[in-house]
């Protein structure tokens, strides 16, 4: 355990000092603060929106949830994708594993260090958003809202560590960082953009809606039949998108926040679904499968990494 803590401290220090982390942190912080500011504008115009709208009220598509949907994967993957293979090729891993530590200390330490860096990023961003919004609004979150924020922060951290664990897995199965970075970027694009396009295409194909021929008839869109078809499309689209942890996070996060203003994918940029506030207990009751899926995904990725790492042969040449 002492070994793992040592590795963790080193990894954390490395992350905090790395250009990669600092740039992503700065970007997220800047956009989040802007979105919080936009949120306060929204709240001023919609007095019963409530404090939580700072996380969802931004009209230009970059609410905090959306930022995490879009950038979350790349943040987590960026901290993990070269954690193992870089040390393997550079020969530091052989030196490390000749020390009297248990081998799993190294992988545990790397995971812990990354998790600490991600927690710092998520928690301080959310904290700063609240800090920016409160003086402008003149009021802060009540007890329930504070609880929601804490739960939301925890969800965000778990979500980010899922991507970290996936990055570590990529880093363990590949020998070259150039391979793992490609894997990471493909996964990122797939989960945050491509999946929503595929989902829309599949839904449109599976549920064809015949536009009435002849002169344009706006009344046709109001029919019961049309609405049912649209509903079926949305359901198919949603279920396909649920392959992506980013989508699951979006669903769970929005519900915990008590807003449904989050948006997912390019197709829905800026098109917030109607405001619908769920009670916290109700939110957790309906969204636990999403939360569980993210947690399980993270555990599975890390467990696979752990097993592979423990069996791996360490040679400097790779």
């Amino acid at each position, binding site marked *: 355990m002492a070994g793992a803590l*040592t590795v963790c401290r080193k990894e954390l220090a490395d992350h905090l000092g790395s250009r990669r982390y600092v740039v992503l942190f700065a970007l997220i912080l800047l956009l989040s603060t802007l979105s919080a500011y936009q949120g306060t504008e929204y709240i001023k115009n919609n007095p019963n929106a409530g404090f939580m709208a700072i996380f969802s009220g931004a009209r230009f598509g970059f609410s905090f949830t959306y930022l995490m949907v879009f950038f979350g994967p790349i943040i987590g993957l960026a901290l993990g994708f070269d954690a193992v293979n870089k040390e393997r090729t550079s020969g530091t891993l052989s030196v490390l594993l000749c020390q009297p*530590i*248990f081998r799993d200390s190294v992988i545990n330490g790397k995971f812990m260090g990354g998790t600490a860096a991600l927690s710092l990023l998520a928690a301080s961003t959310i904290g700063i958003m609240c800090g920016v919004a409160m003086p402008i609004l003149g009021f802060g979150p009540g007890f329930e809202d504070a609880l929601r924020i804490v739960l939301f922060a925890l969800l965000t951290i778990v979500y980010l560590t899922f991507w970290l664990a996936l990055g570590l897995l990529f880093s363990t199965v590949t020998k070259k960082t150039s391979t793992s970075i490609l894997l990471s970027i493909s996964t990122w694009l797939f989960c945050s953009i491509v999946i929503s396009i595929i989902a829309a295409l599949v839904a449109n194909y599976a549920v064809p809606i015949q536009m009435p021929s002849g002169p344009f008839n706006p009344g046709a869109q109001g029919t019961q039949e049309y609405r049912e078809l649209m509903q079926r499309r949305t359901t198919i689209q949603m279920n396909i998108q649920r392959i992506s942890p980013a989508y699951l996070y979006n669903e769970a996060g929005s519900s915990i926040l008590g807003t449904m203003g989050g948006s997912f994918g390019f197709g829905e940029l800026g098109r917030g679904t109607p405001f619908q506030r769920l009670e916290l207990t109700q939110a957790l009751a309906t969204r636990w499968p999403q939360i569980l899926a993210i947690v399980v995904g993270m555990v599975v990725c890390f467990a696979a990494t752990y097993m592979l790492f423990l069996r791996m042969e*360490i040679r400097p040449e790779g």
Partner: protein
Amino acid sequence: MIETRELSKYYGEIKAVDRLNLTVYEGEIFGLLGPNGSGKTTTFITLMGLTVPTSGTATIGGYDIVKDSRKVRKIASMLPEGAGYYEDLTAEQNLNYICQLNDIPKPERERTIKDLLEAVGLADNAKMKVEKFSRGMRQRLGIAEVLIKKPRVALFDEPTIGLDPQGTKEIRDMMFRLNKEQGLTVLLSSHLLYEVQQTCQRVGIIRKGRLIAADTIGNLSKKLSKWKVTLELELAGAGPDLIREIKGINDVMSVDQEGSKIFVHMESDRTREVSEAVIKHGATILLMRPKEHSLDEIFMEYMKEGDQ
């Protein structure tokens, strides 16, 4: 100190290490000599628990390398082939990390690091980033890292590869000093004959994962001379008749003349017959002795043996 019994590591069809039986005694410098790809690195990483053997067992200081791998790594250090360092950290910071991993208490760390840097001649470069280090400096930093845990055994995998003669000498002197002053047992691998000849008390020759021979250099020479004897002669008044007569002796394979010296290569020891011939032809023996074989020749010889 190190003992392997039928230690094997196979990669599918490739037998990287093949039923290796090796003993390294406490306090000696043992050289594992073999050409590239003969299994030296595989042997070393197996001993340190960086990979698991396919079969066979080995112990270091009595600890099983598989079951007690961590205890092995408490008493044994390795400088891996192509050891790496954290390039953006200073020498001191690199050592500090290794100190922490070895549970060296904080108050002792500073002292330990300073002493080690001094011992390997990097005291002036303590605050320099490793990315600016030369090959020789890196290797010396590696030795400092190896010594942090105060090991009883140290494994050096091709420690002088890519170093200039000066750097090579420094590393060798350091190994001698550690062996002498601290009684450190050293297992060294090399593909250079000259190096093990210079450094090691006992040598094991490894080829295609098999240990072909292990002994002191003197004994290896003797073993070789059992198969082939070369007699070095310096004569006064030797004519072509004499040379012809010597060539005619049973078991004499060839006679070489280099300046005033004559080398008689024989299948078995025919020194008596040779001297009788010299006397019969009325020549005077100025010098006559069996020639020592250099490890070079032994190495080549063993390599050939292995081919058969």
